[in-house]
């Protein structure tokens, strides 16, 4: 074992000796000093000098190799929970003025001292350098720098690398069939080259045992990508043998790879992905019903062997527990030291159990990660479902809802079967013709690719109008929002891109688009993963919010003159630093749109920490409450959402019609080790969010992307449509349609039709006010597809709580700045409100079963 690994191992050992404790209370901040030197011996000598009475700041200035040295080593005030694990451990239990022992940090070996409060109030404030929580600090000494990232077994990045290398040599960026063909060729060619190398017939050969083991690892990855797990396992096994004989340091990684590969093989071969049913729903009694499966047994063997040498690796510990769940031997057969107790998965509240009825309804979409839109594309009063897949050879699917309730794929008839690839999609009515159009987003994580704007012709067909509309410029994106930024009644398009400037396409009267991002001041470049729009200051003009991975988020305030001003940090909405899905919603129904941002921390370790109630390192989700004065307050912890997750597809809806919007958060990462489970959080009166994953039966273990909430059976409650699947062909999965079990609360569904405003009414506000058990109260909704990854219907489903009486509906149309008010509207019905109309119109929506036994439509 080399020195560095030995040191890391020591650090881990030290961490393991610390008893598990829950996080320190929020708001407990600390001011301390640190000296970092380059060896443990030197640190010990520094400690002795300090004990002998040397001045800490002076010594820090003279000896510390850390950037804080010139500042006398001063750090803070910071929340203890925001510090690296090693520092947390050292500081907890330390009295003011006392010196810590020697602590390993990324820049060396440290001695710490808590600054006494007198000194803090005297010196701490006068120093302009105190409170150093900048980017570097956040990285080097903050908790987030201690995150352990997921171990990748998927081959995804390998295939993307091959694509990047040939980019620009073909028209694949713009031509979808070419891209499909190219990627197929690249994979075959890479596999061939690796095989040649290993056979010694290629141009290059591996020169060291590590290189040889790594080459086998590469071979395994390329097989894992396709889901050929048997071949992948053979290659990893070769790598393991080399590790055993000549490269011992690599052994843990090889064992981990083999464990993950065996587990994945067992899942694939036993229908976990094709027909998951009740299996793989994370709960205290998850059972995969595999019994004595040889692959699961192998996985357990490898994980167990790995944990012998590395007992504190929580990712493998998590996977060991999952393997036992699959085998049906959880929790009894999980070694006590490695057990994640069943209690950790229990829900404290019960909202009834959702049931997956995707198969019974005909909504059978089996593919890799992708987008989902639920909306009515043929204006027949029934919601259809559109799905896409990131894979460049996979076609879009359009599931039309037949009169008997069954979903029937009509993509070919609609001309959508030639639309290949697309990680995300969003609906719109860009030409105000009353037929919903589709925008497909591509290139995210990979290489810049074309988008597709698909015009709904109103006759069951779609036409690709991307080029004619002026939207052909390629970019890597999965984030777009349709929004009327200039209140001209036409929906404009804002696109967030990965590492290139954002685009703002103004919808011109002639039906084409013009990119005005630069002129409008919204063209900042970042690794943007989510964009959303709403009028957060209620001035009648739509604002934009951009969620960025690896940077701060942007809040673009609409200046009402075609330009925007970026106010993110000042307004208090900088995001988690690893932002992903995002949306505006009024979670507390106070009339001001709040902001949710999912953090994408790709760490199984962090997820396990949450279940084990160990301190987190990664950045949490963010909920920003709109204070109504142009600023926001971070209420994440207050409402119980301070969780670290790897959130991808996500959306909101009201699962129990209490009028408060709940959250469903899917997870994602290409690695087959990244199986951590989705979460359903119930919003309790706009005050807190309660985890009801386990009791609701919605904790799909596998990755999921597009999420939509929609009342698909017209019974007045919302189902959850969840496009499950990872980024590779080997990680494809069936879509989930979780049917809502129902409850007794009242509801109202409102469809808006714009006249002067955009016809789809995006951006219009609905306020429903009712008398309920706790008095008169209002529920606020803005017309939108919801979150940035997955699109719910534009028609708004609004829960009214129990025994709602005297239901009043108000609609505010920002474009015309007009308001319509309707009193004593009947509850538990579907209504349509057309802009300027004197009356609303009830919509006839008969029951529509989700369990339809066959195509002829016998309802079960």
């Amino acid at each position, binding site marked *: 074992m080399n020195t560095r*690994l030995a040191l890391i191992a020591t650090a881990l050992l030290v961490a393991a000796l610390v008893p598990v404790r829950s996080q320190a209370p929020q708001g407990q901040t600390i001011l301390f000093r640190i000296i970092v030197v380059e060896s443990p011996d030197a640190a010990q000598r520094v400690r002795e000098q300090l004990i002998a009475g040397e001045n800490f700041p002076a010594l820090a200035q003279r000896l510390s190799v850390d950037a804080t040295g010139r500042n006398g080593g001063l750090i803070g005030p910071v929340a203890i929970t925001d510090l690296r694990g090693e520092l947390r451990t050292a500081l907890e239990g330390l009295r003011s003025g006392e010196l810590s022992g020697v602590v390993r940090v990324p820049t060396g070996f440290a001695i710490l001292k808590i600054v006494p409060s007198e000194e803090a109030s005297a010196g701490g404030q006068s120093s302009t350098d105190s409170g150093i929580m900048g980017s570097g600090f956040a990285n*080097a000494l903050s908790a987030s720098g201690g995150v352990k990232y997921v171990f990748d077994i998927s081959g995804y990045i390998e295939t993307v690398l091959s694509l990047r290398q040939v980019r620009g040599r073909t028209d694949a960026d713009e031509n979808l069939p070419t891209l499909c063909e190219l990627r197929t060729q690249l994979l075959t060619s890479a596999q061939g080259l690796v095989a040649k190398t290993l056979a010694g017939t290629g141009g290059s050969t591996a020169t060291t045992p590590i290189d040889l083991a790594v080459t086998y690892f590469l071979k395994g990855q390329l097989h894992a990508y396709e889901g050929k797990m048997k071949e992948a396992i053979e290659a990893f096994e070769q790598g393991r043998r080399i590790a055993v004989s000549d490269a011992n340091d690599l052994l843990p990684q090889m064992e981990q790879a083999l464990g993950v590969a065996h587990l994945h093989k067992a899942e694939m071969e036993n229908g976990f992905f094709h027909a998951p049913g009740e299996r793989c729903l994370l709960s205290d009694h998850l059972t995969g019903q595999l019994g004595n499966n040889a692959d699961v047994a192998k996985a357990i063997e490898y994980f167990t062997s790995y944990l012998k040498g590395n007992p504190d690796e929580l990712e493998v510990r998590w996977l060991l527990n999952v393997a036992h769940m699959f085998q049906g031997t959880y929790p009894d057969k999980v070694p006590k030291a490695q057990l994640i107790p069943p209690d950790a998965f229990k829900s404290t509240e019960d909202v009834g159990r959702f049931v997956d009825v995707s198969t019974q309804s005909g909504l059978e979409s089996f593919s890799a990660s992708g987008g989902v839109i639920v909306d009515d594309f043929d204006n027949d009063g029934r919601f259809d479902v559109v799905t896409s897949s990131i894979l460049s050879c996979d076609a879009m699917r359009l599931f039309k809802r037949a009169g008997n309730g069954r979903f029937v794929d009509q993509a070919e008839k609609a001309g959508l079967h030639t639309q290949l690839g697309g990680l995300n999609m969003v609906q719109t009515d860009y030409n105000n013709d009353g037929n919903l159009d589709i925008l497909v987003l591509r290139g995210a994580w990979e290489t810049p690719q074309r988008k597709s704007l698909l015009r709904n012709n109103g006759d069951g067909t779609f036409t690709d109008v991307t080029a004619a509309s002026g939207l052909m410029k390629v970019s890597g994106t999965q984030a777009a929002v349709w929004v009327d930024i200039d209140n001209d009644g036409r929906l404009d398009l804002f696109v967030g891109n990965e590492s290139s400037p954002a685009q703002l396409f103004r919808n011109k009267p002639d039906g084409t688009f013009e990119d005005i991002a630069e002129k409008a001041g919204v063209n900042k470049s970042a690794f943007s993963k989510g964009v959303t729009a709403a009028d957060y200051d209620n001035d009648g003009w739509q604002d934009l919010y951009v969620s960025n991975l690896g940077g701060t988020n942007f809040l673009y305030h609409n200046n009402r003159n075609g330009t925007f001003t970026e106010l993110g940090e000042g307004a208090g909405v900088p995001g988690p630093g690893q932002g992903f899905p995002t949306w505006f919603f009024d979670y507390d129904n106070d009339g001001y749109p709040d902001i949710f941002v999912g953090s994408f921390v790709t760490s199984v370790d962090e997820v396990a920490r949450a279940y084990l109630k160990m301190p987190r390192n990664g950045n949490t989700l963010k909920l920003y409450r709109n204070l109504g004065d142009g600023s926001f307050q971070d209420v994440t912890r207050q409402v119980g959402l301070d969780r670290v997750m790897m959130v991808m597809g996500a959306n909101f809806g009201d699962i129990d019609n209490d009028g408060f919007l709940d959250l469903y958060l899917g997870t994602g990462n290409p690695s087959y080790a990244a199986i951590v489970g989705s979460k359903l959080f119930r919003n309790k009166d706009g005050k807190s969010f309660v985890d009801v994953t386990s009791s609701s039966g919605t904790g799909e273990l596998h990755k999921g992307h597009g999420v939509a909430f929609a009342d698909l059976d017209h019974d007045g409650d919302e189902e959850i449509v969840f496009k499950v699947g990872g980024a590779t062909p080997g990680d494809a999965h069936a879509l989930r349609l979780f049917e809502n079990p129902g409850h007794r609360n009242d509801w109202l569904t409102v469809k808006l039709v714009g006249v002067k405003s955009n016809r789809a009414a995006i951006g219009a506000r609905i306020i429903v006010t009712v008398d309920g058990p706790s008095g008169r109260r209002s529920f606020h909704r803005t017309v939108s597809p919801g979150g940035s990854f997955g699109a719910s219907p534009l028609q708004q489903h609004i829960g009214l709580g129990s025994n709602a009486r005297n239901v009043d509906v108000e609609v505010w149309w920002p474009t015309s700045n007009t308001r319509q008010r309707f009193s004593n509207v009947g509850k538990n019905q579907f209504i349509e409100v057309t802009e300027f109309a004197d009356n609303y119109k009830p919509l006839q929506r008969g029951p529509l079963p989700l369990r339809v036994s066959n195509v002829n439509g016998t309802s079960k």
Partner: protein
Amino acid sequence: MERPNSYCAGLTLALLAAMAISVVAQQPVRHSMSGMVLKVDASQKSVVISHDAVSGVMPAMTMPFEVRDVKELNGLVPGTIVSFTLVLTKDVGYIERVKTIRYQSVEQDPIAARRLRLLANLTGGDRKTLSIGQAVPDFTLINQSRQPVSLAQFKGKVVGVNFIYTSCVLPQFCYRVANHFGVVRDRFKERMGRDLVLLTITFDPARDTPDVLAQYAKQWKADAKTWHFMTGNAADVERVCGLFGVDFFADEGLMSHSVRTAVIDRQGVLVANIEGNRYTAAQLGDLVETALKR
């Protein structure tokens, strides 16, 4: 100070002698040691090493060592990390069993970068990475003050180069090596700009704009005239990284990358190209000092 800023033969001999005397027996005493090679002189059978501390025996410092067999010096260049055995008898001290420690981190990220490099080489052809002793071709990038900066303008000065990206989530890599430059800058405060220039180059130019780099550089209060944080268009950055053997692969918003720190002498010749993060700022400083003295 914890460690002498320069090595001194007299002091070294005295120290070695003192250590040898402390040995009662006539048997030679052996210490297993490690460190970074600063200078190799085959004709004198001598190598200067900035060695790590030997716990309880001696602190980390820079020393010239002799070898008995000149073959021990084969393959050693400044920046090489070595392990060796110090042999002390009553009269003499020398080193033997000099072994190059190839940077072979099996940590997740470096190993992923290695796997992807292997694939890239197979599918896209090898790159031309500079060898020690080669002249570094000129390149021009933009610094944190948005000024174009060319390597050629530093002729006559020693140039240190390292590579980072500011969104790096693993502080033991990017942050650690950047911080090492902070320590070197402090050590050679008076010579910065006059004799020594530091370049910290991002391999994530899409995100690391001059403004972002300026913000990052603030942590060390880097003077943009002497410590340049550099970015440029993707092709230029890739070429410069290629020269020094820096691998970087975008992966889910992060980068799998290798870690390199190079030293270029006053004539523009590459004198060291350290791989990995397993060296100390003091060793890097010693390496720079050696280059400054040439």
